């Protein structure tokens, strides 16, 4: 079986779509963060795929995805810290309950 670039790109696009869908529909903040991770990972996957199939001579895409993974980890750490604060304040991680401002 010939594994061309599509075999890798389609899962990446599916991950992206699932991430956006989850981000929009989920009410739990942790679940939203998981969806965000899916989007970030699909972007990393894209970089690796394009590097491997289109520009096999250079390593730039691979290096970029390594940095992107590290940055995503930092983002998640900050977000989790804030979610813990919210949980302490209102006893819930439901995004619908954080609507006290508006006015």
């Amino acid at each position, binding site marked *: 079986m010939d594994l061309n670039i599509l075999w890798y790109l389609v899962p990446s696009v599916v991950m992206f779509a699932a991430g956006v869908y989850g981000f929009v529909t989920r009410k739990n903040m942790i679940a939203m963060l998981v969806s965000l991770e899916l*989007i970030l990972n699909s*972007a990393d996957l894209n*970089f690796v795929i*394009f590097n491997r199939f*289109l520009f096999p001579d250079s390593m730039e895409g691979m290096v970029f995805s390594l*940095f*992107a993974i590290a940055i995503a980890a930092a983002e998640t750490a*900050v*977000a989790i810290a804030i979610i813990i604060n919210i949980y302490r*304040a209102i006893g819930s991680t439901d995004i619908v309950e954080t609507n006290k401002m508006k006015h």
Partner: protein
Amino acid sequence: MDYSQFGAMLPELIILGIFLIVFLADTFSPENGKKFLTPMTTVLMLLATVAIWIVPSCGEAVFGGMYVDGPACKAMKCVLNVGAWICMLEAAKWVESDVMYYRKGEFYELILVTLFGMYLMISARHFLLFIIGLESASLPIAALVAYNKDKYESHEAAIKYIITAVFSSAILLTGLSFVYAFSGGSLYFSDIAVQITSGEMSGLLIFALTFVLAGIGFKLSLVPMHLWTADVYQGAPTSVTAYLSVVSKGAAAFAFFIIFVQVFGQVYSAAWEWMLYAVIIATITVGNLFAMRQKNMKRFMAFSSVSQAGYIMLGVMAANQLGMASMMFYILVYVVSNLGAFAVIQMIEDRTGLVSMDDYNGLHKTNPYLAVAMTLAMFSLAGIPPFAGFFSKILIFTSVTSHQNSMALYMLVLIALINTIISLYYYLLVVKAMWISADEPKIGAFKSGKCEKVALTVCVLGIVFLGLVSYVYKYFIDSVGAETLLALN
């Protein structure tokens, strides 16, 4: 490896140096030494601004072309540095309060780290460095937004900020991964620009461009991506709101200009001119219409800053040297006007806890100086003649039509002009509340602190004189002209 290359990164090294000094002083100083932290940091920031301005940049690309610091980059960094300095002065009173006393070092450290990230965003000529800069500019801000630990609103604003920030950077990374598919295996701005030529337009390039525009547009709160702005601005501590609305937005605008002109400049009219056209009109109009019905001052300033972001984007529409120079001037004027308004809002919130527009009724009876400063700031934001906001609006409107003579661009300027008149209505509502409303003033007379006086004086002087002193604008024009590495037409 040639370590002398680090010498070219002078502005970054200065900020890093201040960060280390503040960090060490904060960690190792005895209890009573902490009171020197605020004066030390603000004085160091002032010196840093002067140093970055005076020391000539080497103007060459280092680290294999990843990093560039020419005269224009230097001028942009100066503008941001002035903004951060005024923000620190305004925050001084809040930082010195009892709740904040043991955490004030962290406040300055986080601000300095974000400033460092913004410098990298501006100087980066490679997407890897740009992303690192963008993230180190936006993640510490989330921590700053959540700084009022004992206030629920602060947490709510922080979660809204961090989730939209992560989502936007995910979108930006996805866009960049598709840009990478075009790039010929390199993520240098110049290499991608060579690969993308206006001849072959594909759907994938438009797709990638939309994602990149949306990703950076989130940071700028351009209109389809502006929904986080009001809540975050309202819930964040006021000094952080001021920082977010001015310095963070300014840095994102500069980076937006550099990326779109340097990387995608070849496909300007083919791909993103009309995209940006629609976004600008939507941003200015929606920001204005929503600002009209806000009663909370911080929410009001949030929507006002959304519409100001639309005006700033007019400089990107011009996409030439004049556009860059007018954008720098606009942002400098926006820094002094917006921070002037925020200084007053912050002082009043600090002393009385009042943030509603109705609370400002009759302010001139109790605090005449604050009322005058606020009035000048509102006049400048609205663009009333002798003040700086008028000149910055004129220059940015002229720059839009400077590179091509098309009817559509004149229409854009006309729409922006009509919106200026609409914005006059809501800016004057504040002035009316302060000077004309006959109610008894709710805010008693109070004295402002030393730092706040300095900040407000600098802002008022800037509002009055920046437009009249033509040297400033000429300095920006010259610096953009001298920047050979910016590759503008």
